[in-house]
């Protein structure tokens, strides 16, 4: 865990409301694992006051990447940063995805909705290095939500796209596409991140197919360090339901431990 007050932005890209920043932060990059996140200070003043939690999208040498959508004032300020600017970053925070040795030679489904693809690119790359085959599912409302389409298509991974309006890929929900594929193939694991309803449905599908899964959850956070207990959510652990911290006990949780809003 490091606080890098002068991490330098080296490159920015944008697609409508989606942004990708590449940031030089060698100490953080060295420790970062897929599914972990950063706490980024978006303003040098006090408005907004809190840091913003952002998934680590990729690590390349001394650099880390974040991929996000502008959803409020914090992400709007972050989206205005330009190459050469310095940002104050804390990380890597939390516990990431479980990458198990037995994944070797197996297919692993990585399912992301919209900006939820953020942590899955990193995990897919790591899966490749352990000899597993990542299979990407990437859904959005419309083509413009598939901001990382070209980047993903250049990787050579199998990518399954869906849009609600059929403007690209399968017409319908990404969960339908996953369900279809599970009739034909037997992945060893599923990693998911995206809107709550998407993850809840995926969890249901995984349970029916006895497919183990992990999801990366989101929350407003105070500290990112496990100190303030502001980001909690009800989690089933050891037969008990209790408020656990998304920042420190997560942000990645096994599917069966998560209580969804409909439960």
């Amino acid at each position, binding site marked *: *865990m*490091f*606080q890098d007050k002068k991490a330098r932005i080296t490159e920015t890209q944008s697609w409508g409301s989606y942004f990708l920043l590449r940031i030089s932060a060698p100490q953080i990059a060295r420790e970062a694992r897929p599914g972990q996140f950063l706490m980024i*200070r978006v303003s040098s003043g*006090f*408005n*907004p*006051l*809190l*840091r913003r939690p952002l998934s680590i999208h990729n690590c390349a040498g001394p650099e880390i990447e974040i991929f996000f959508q502008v959803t409020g004032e914090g992400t709007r300020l972050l989206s205005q940063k330009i190459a050469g600017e310095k940002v*104050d970053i*804390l990380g890597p925070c939390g516990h990431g995805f479980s990458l198990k040795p037995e994944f070797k030679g197996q297919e692993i489904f990585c399912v992301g909705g919209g900006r939820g693809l953020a942590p899955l690119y990193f995990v897919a790359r790591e899966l490749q290095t352990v000899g597993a085959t990542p299979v990407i599912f990437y859904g959005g409302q419309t083509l413009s939500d598939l901001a990382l389409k070209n980047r993903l298509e250049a990787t050579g991974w199998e990518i399954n796209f869906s849009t609600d309006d059929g403007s690209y890929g399968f017409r319908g929900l990404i969960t339908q596409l996953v369900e279809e594929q599970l009739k034909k193939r037997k992945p060893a694991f599923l990693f998911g991140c995206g809107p709550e309803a998407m993850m809840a449905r995926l969890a249901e599908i995984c349970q029916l197919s006895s497919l183990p899964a992990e999801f990366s959850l989101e*929350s*407003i*956070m*105070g*500290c*990112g*360090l*496990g*100190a*303030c*207990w*502001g*980001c*909690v*959510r009800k989690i089933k652990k050891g037969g008990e339901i*209790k*408020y656990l911290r998304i920042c*420190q006990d997560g942000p990645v949780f096994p599917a069966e431990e998560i209580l969804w809003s409909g439960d």
Partner: protein
Amino acid sequence: MVDLSSDLGFLRLKNPVIAASGTFGYGLEFQPLYDLSQLGGLVVKGLYFKPREGNPPPRLAETPCGLINSIGLQGIGVEAFCQEVLPKLALLETAIIANVCGEEEEEYARVAEYLSRHQGLAALELNISCPNVRAGGKCPAQDPEATYRTVKRVKQVSPLPLITKLSPNVTDITAVALAAEEAGSEAVSLVNTFLALAIDLESRKPKLGNVLGGLSGPAIKPLALRMVFEVARQVKIPVIGLGGIFSYQDALEFMVAGASAVEVGTANFVNPLACPEIIKGLEDWAESHGLNRLSEIVGSLKV
């Protein structure tokens, strides 16, 4: 070399900067980032006798230059604290202060008594001012008599020095401070958070799961400073100032207003290195102003 120490009478701090309860976990959360022995002290998260679930989320709402929280003192309870956390904290060269909570007077006494039987604590901070655990944000620190009774009861069972943490959600904070002093509290710390509300306009629902919460951060600093000034003029016991301290200049203002030491809270979220940076800033400032002892400035406001 400037003497940064702060002598509270019952406790000598190596410097006046204390990490505030509720913003610093049980202390160990910040250990990966810096050596906690640099701190004047640290106050751990509020402790009830038993583990406590806390309030339903959402528990945080940001406001301009501020943060409203309704955590509701989720915590591990005294037993787990004394067994699993305190032995690690006791190794640090800083004053470890436990924040004592209770549903009613007797629980405050039980918690204080239990903690006093363990090695490693320099003092207790009596949390009678959390706005998130009783209906409507009520707390004992809103009533001088309840404050007196609670302090008196805890003093009966615990030999540890007691710092009573006061609520700003009162008409006259000096009356409550005087009640704490009269009941035997060795110091007062102020202020806890301001009872507040944040609304989501589209849903017309409160942003916090518990409806009301406590406001902290730079937004409350001038209010907290005024209250520290008022209380420091009335009581003879040391005053520990807190409320929106984000920089060494903020800390100095509280000291000039009469605080012998300060607590740094919400700033720990925004800048996890806030405490050590404030300590360094105080040292540099004192040096550049030719002070031998930083404590010379306590209560030096020219009015």
